[in-house]
């Protein structure tokens, strides 16, 4: 990778100038350095985007045979789906609810695990478990724990007298939604908490010292000092969670497969359900899906005035 090294292995020392200009790589400009990354992104990310948008305007048979252009037919077909309205509403409630709960709980968890106490390492390690285990397996684990006859959560709740008889929590959308949101929060907490823990590390200790000298109370210190200084980490957490939770497929797929029908589906799961019946309509759903993510993230960034703060 280095420029030609002569027999002696050393070149005469050059003064004042960095070697970039004259070395072979320097002359080619940024291409050898960022070229491979750009290529990978173009082939695996941008090409599918193009392919997806194109597919949404095509007539394609179930076996994958292209039968010409469909124009906006697939979009019309999608918007005529009777379930679409409730799926979109559910998606918004799901995303906002899960992200909000995750952020509030993570703030508390980060504060707790930032303290010094015996066993901090072990307990932090336990906190990481849902992150290390695949989301799908965690979701399937909860599906099993909520099983009507053999689920341990049903057993615990009947033993504690919370419910009289075991219930089929995931069979009814009214109870399936809260449980799936619980699982989505559960798997989002580790990353978010760790992002906030990392943010807490960047707060210099002297700031707290100064606050104490000035006689600030615990709550006042937290609100006036910790929270504002946590802002960058908090924003990173919200944006990444918005994107992840909105697209969260394994939680819902592992627990209910979006069913019965599309009663527990978000737009992402709905898109997957459509894929087996009509790939063009599914592509149209994907395009709408992506537009929704962009709108949500942009709306959040606007509200939090991301740009002004130069995060």
């Amino acid at each position: 990778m280095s420029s030609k090294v002569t027999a002696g292995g050393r070149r005469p020392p050059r003064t004042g100038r960095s070697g970039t200009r004259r070395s072979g790589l320097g002359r080619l400009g940024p291409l050898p350095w960022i070229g491979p990354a750009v290529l990978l992104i173009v082939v695996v990310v941008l090409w599918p985007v193009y392919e997806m948008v194109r597919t949404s305007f095509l007539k394609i048979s179930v076996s994958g045979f292209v039968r010409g252009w469909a124009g906006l037919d697939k979009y019309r077909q999608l918007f005529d789906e009777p379930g679409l309205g409730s799926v979109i509403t559910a998606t918004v409630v799901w995303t906002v609810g899960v992200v909000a709960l995750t952020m509030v709980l993570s703030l508390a968890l980060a504060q707790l695990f930032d303290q010094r106490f015996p066993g901090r390492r072990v307990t932090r390690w336990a906190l990481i478990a849902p992150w290390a285990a695949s989301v799908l397996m965690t979701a399937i684990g909860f599906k099993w724990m909520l099983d009507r006859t053999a689920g341990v959560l049903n057993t615990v709740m009947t033993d504690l007298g919370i419910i009289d008889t075991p219930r089929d929590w995931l069979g009814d959308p009214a109870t399936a939604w809260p449980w799936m949101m619980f699982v989505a929060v559960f798997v989002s907490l580790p990353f978010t908490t760790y992002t906030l823990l990392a943010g807490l590390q960047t707060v210099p200790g002297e700031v707290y010292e100064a606050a104490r000298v000035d006689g600030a109370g615990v709550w006042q210190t937290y609100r006036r000092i910790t929270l504002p200084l946590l802002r960058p980490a908090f924003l990173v957490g919200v944006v990444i969670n918005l994107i992840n939770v909105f697209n969260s497929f394994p939680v819902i797929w592992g627990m209910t497969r979006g069913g019965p029908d599309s009663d527990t589906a978000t737009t992402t799961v709905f898109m997957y359900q459509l894929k087996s019946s009509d790939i063009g309509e599914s592509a149209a759903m994907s395009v709408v899906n992506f537009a929704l993510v962009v709108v949500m993230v942009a709306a959040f960034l606007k509200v939090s005035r991301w740009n002004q703060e130069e995060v």
Partner: protein
Amino acid sequence: MAQQTIQPSPGAPDALPPDGRRPAGTVRPRRAPRPRTVVVTAVAWLIAAVFLLPYVQMVITALRPAGELRDATYLPTEFAWSNFIDVWRESNLGSNLRVTLLVAGGSTLLVLLVAIPAAYYTARVKYRGRKLFLLLVLVTQMFQPTSLLVGLYREFHQLDMLNSVWTLVLCNAAFNLAFAIWILTAYFSAIPVQLEEAAMIDGLGRGGALLRVTLPLALPGVVTAVIFTFIAAWNEFVMGLTLSTVPESQPLTVGINSFIGNYTVQWNYLFAASVIAIVPVVVLFAFIERHVVSGLTAGSVK
């Protein structure tokens, strides 16, 4: 860091200053913990238990004999360790594990090869198109594989690359690239340019300076990128489900998902397989817990 705190003279380590207070940074003698610490400890351990319970339950289920699977009991009367052997013998778990290892290992390697030069150059040189490149990376972060499934499937179908380990390597690498570039750019930016300039004056090219000087200093960042990519690729489900349709080329997550049949679910086998899939990653994560915070710290400070 407390390394520079003034220490008592080595001869008399326990001599306290006249007012009885120890200088900051020295070890305090053991005394009864404050009530606050007790509460914090109790709550933290309780939360840790809640976070582990689902996985403990998975292990218990994995060890249930087939006859006691659907009993509403907390523990089976005996543990059927043979479940692990049965599931290994009677399913595709071996080839699933091989695919997952290849995909996770291959995509991690590819991410490093591609992200290190890009992040290094972006951190060091103000080239034309730098803003555009950073925008491209940010956009990649917004595109999740889930939202692109149809496009990905159509593309690799046309390329006749479905059911290939290499397709999964490429895809996992591409979707984890943004995060790696982000973390590594932050690390490289924090390393003083003067160190490299000195190396280049001594006759190393930019590439040599990167390999011999900067990279070793940015090792924590590289470790963070490696771990994040490896774990994300190890746990990836959606692309594997879509791009691999035959059992032999499917990763572990997809293989395990297929235990959920249309009518029956072999829960004990399913969780035995899950435990096999989860344990290596949990152990890996336990080793690098410290790096996670420092890696994310660098990322959020920029």
